[in-house]
C-alpha cells in the first residue's frame, strides 16, 4: 500500500467522522459507480466540505480537480497530491491539468470535477463551465452526475464555521455520452450536453424550480437567534 493510499484511507475515515459529527450524511446510488475503468464524477459545489464528504462515501478512490491556490498553503503541496487532488489554475486554460486528468482516466481511475468552477454563494447550481463539458466529451468515459444537497446550509462559502445539517449525496446513473468526440463535434454538443448535465445535477441535488436553496424549514425547529432590531 502506498503512502498516498494510506493517507487517502485515513482521510476517508476522517471524512466519515466529520460527516457523522456535522451531518448525518445520507448516500444514495453508490452502485452507480463503475466497479472498474475510468469514469468522471460531476458534482454540484456548495461547501468546502463537499470533496471531503464525497471521497469519504465513494467505494473507489476519486482524483479531484482542486484550485491550484490551495496547494500553496503550508504542507498542502505535499498533502493534497497524496489525497489525489489535481491542481487546476483558474485564470487560464490549464492544459497540464487536462493532460493529468486524461492520463488518470486512461489508467482506469476516477476523476471528480465540480463543473461550476467554484462554490455556489447561494446554494443554487451555477452555470457549468463550457471547458469542463468539452473535457467530458473528449474523455469518452462514463459520466456520473452527483447531486449534493444540504452542504450549503452546513457550511456556506461566506461563513467562517460549519453548523450541523443533514447532507444528502445522490449518485446518479452513468451517462454514456459516446466515444471521444473530435473538436468540431465537441463544439456542436457542448450546449446540449451542458443542458443535460445541468438538468441532472439540479434533479439530484434536490433543486426543483421555486424551491428555496438552502431552506431548512422542514427540519429546523430551533428558535431563531436574532433579537428584534
Amino acid at each position: 500500500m502506498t503512502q498516498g493510499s494510506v493517507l487517502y484511507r485515513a482521510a476517508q475515515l476522517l471524512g466519515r467522522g466529520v460527516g457523522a459529527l456535522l451531518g448525518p450524511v445520507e448516500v444514495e446510488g453508490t452502485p452507480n459507480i463503475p466497479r472498474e475503468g475510468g469514469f468522471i464524477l460531476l458534482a454540484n459545489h456548495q461547501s468546502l466540505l463537499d470533496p471531503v464528504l464525497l471521497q469519504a462515501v465513494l467505494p473507489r478512490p476519486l482524483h479531484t480537480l482542486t484550485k491550484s491556490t490551495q496547494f500553496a498553503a503550508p504542507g498542502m503541496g505535499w498533502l493534497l497530491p497524496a489525497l489525489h487532488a489535481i491542481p487546476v489554475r483558474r485564470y487560464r486554460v490549464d492544459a497540464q491539468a487536462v493532460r493529468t486528468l486524461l492520463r488518470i482516466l486512461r489508467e482506469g481511475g476516477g476523476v471528480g470535477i465540480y463543473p461550476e468552477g467554484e462554490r455556489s454563494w447561494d446554494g443554487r447550481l451555477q452555470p457549468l463551465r463550457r471547458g469542463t463539458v468539452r473535457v467530458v466529451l473528449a474523455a469518452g468515459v462514463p459520466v456520473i452526475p452527483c447531486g449534493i444537497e444540504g452542504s450549503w446550509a452546513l457550511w456556506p462559502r461566506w461563513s467562517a464555521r460549519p453548523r450541523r445539517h443533514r447532507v444528502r449525496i445522490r449518485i446518479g446513473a452513468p451517462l454514456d455520452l459516446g466515444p471521444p468526440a473530435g473538436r468540431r463535434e465537441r463544439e456542436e454538443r457542448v450546449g446540449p450536453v451542458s443542458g443535460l448535465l445541468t438538468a441532472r445535477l439540479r434533479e439530484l441535488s434536490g433543486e426543483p424550480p421555486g424551491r428555496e436553496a438552502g431552506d431548512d424549514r422542514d427540519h429546523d425547529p430551533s428558535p431563531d437567534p436574532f433579537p428584534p432590531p
Partner: protein
Amino acid sequence: MGLRDFLHRCPDCLGPVAEAGGDAIRCTRCGTVVGRGKGRGGGLRLFRSGAAAPQPLDPAHARIRVDEGDSGSASLWAVSGRSARVRIARLECEVPVRANGRILGFREQFGPERPGRALELETVLELREPEADGRSGLDVRIPWEDIGALQASSSTLQIAFGSSLVRLRFPEDPVRFWEELARHRIRAAWQRTGRGTVVEFQPRVRAR
C-alpha cells in the same frame, strides 16, 4: 469572510450593511437583520424592524436582488469612481506540483502582499501601490475589456491581464461586491466594443 461578503447590501432596502456578528448583518438604513438559523438549521432568516417574527429568506432571491438592484444591474452599478484600500500580490512564478515523480500540474507563487489602492472607473480599473523596499510599485490602468480572467478565490479577487496576474485582498470591502462590480464593467466594455455578451469570467473571459 462573513455574511457581508455574500449580501453586501440589505436585501430589503438595498441600503449599506454592517456585520452584526455570528453570521449576521444589520442594515444601517432600515435596521433589518439577516442571519443564519441556529442549531441544526442553516437557512437564512430576515428580521424586519418592527416585525414579530423572522421570515425565511430565499438566498438565491436575495443574491440576485443585492447584485442587480431593483431595476437590473444599472441601478446599483450606475455610479463609477469607487475606490478601496487593497493589499496587492503579484504572480511571481508557477511551481510544479508532483506526485510519484510525475507532474500533476502547477500552482501559483505570489509575491508578498503590499498595500495599495483600487479605483474603478467606467472604462478602466486603476491599481496603485506605493514604491517600497527599492521595488517599483505597481501603477497600472487596465481597460476592462483587457481583463483576461476574473475570479473570487476565498477572500481575494484574482485578475489576469496581459501576461500578469494580481491578487487583491479588500480589508474593508466585501470581495463579492468588487467581483460583481468588475463583472458588470467587463460585460459593459465587451458590449461597447462589439465583442458580444460575456458568458464566462474564468478560466478566461468569453463571450457568446
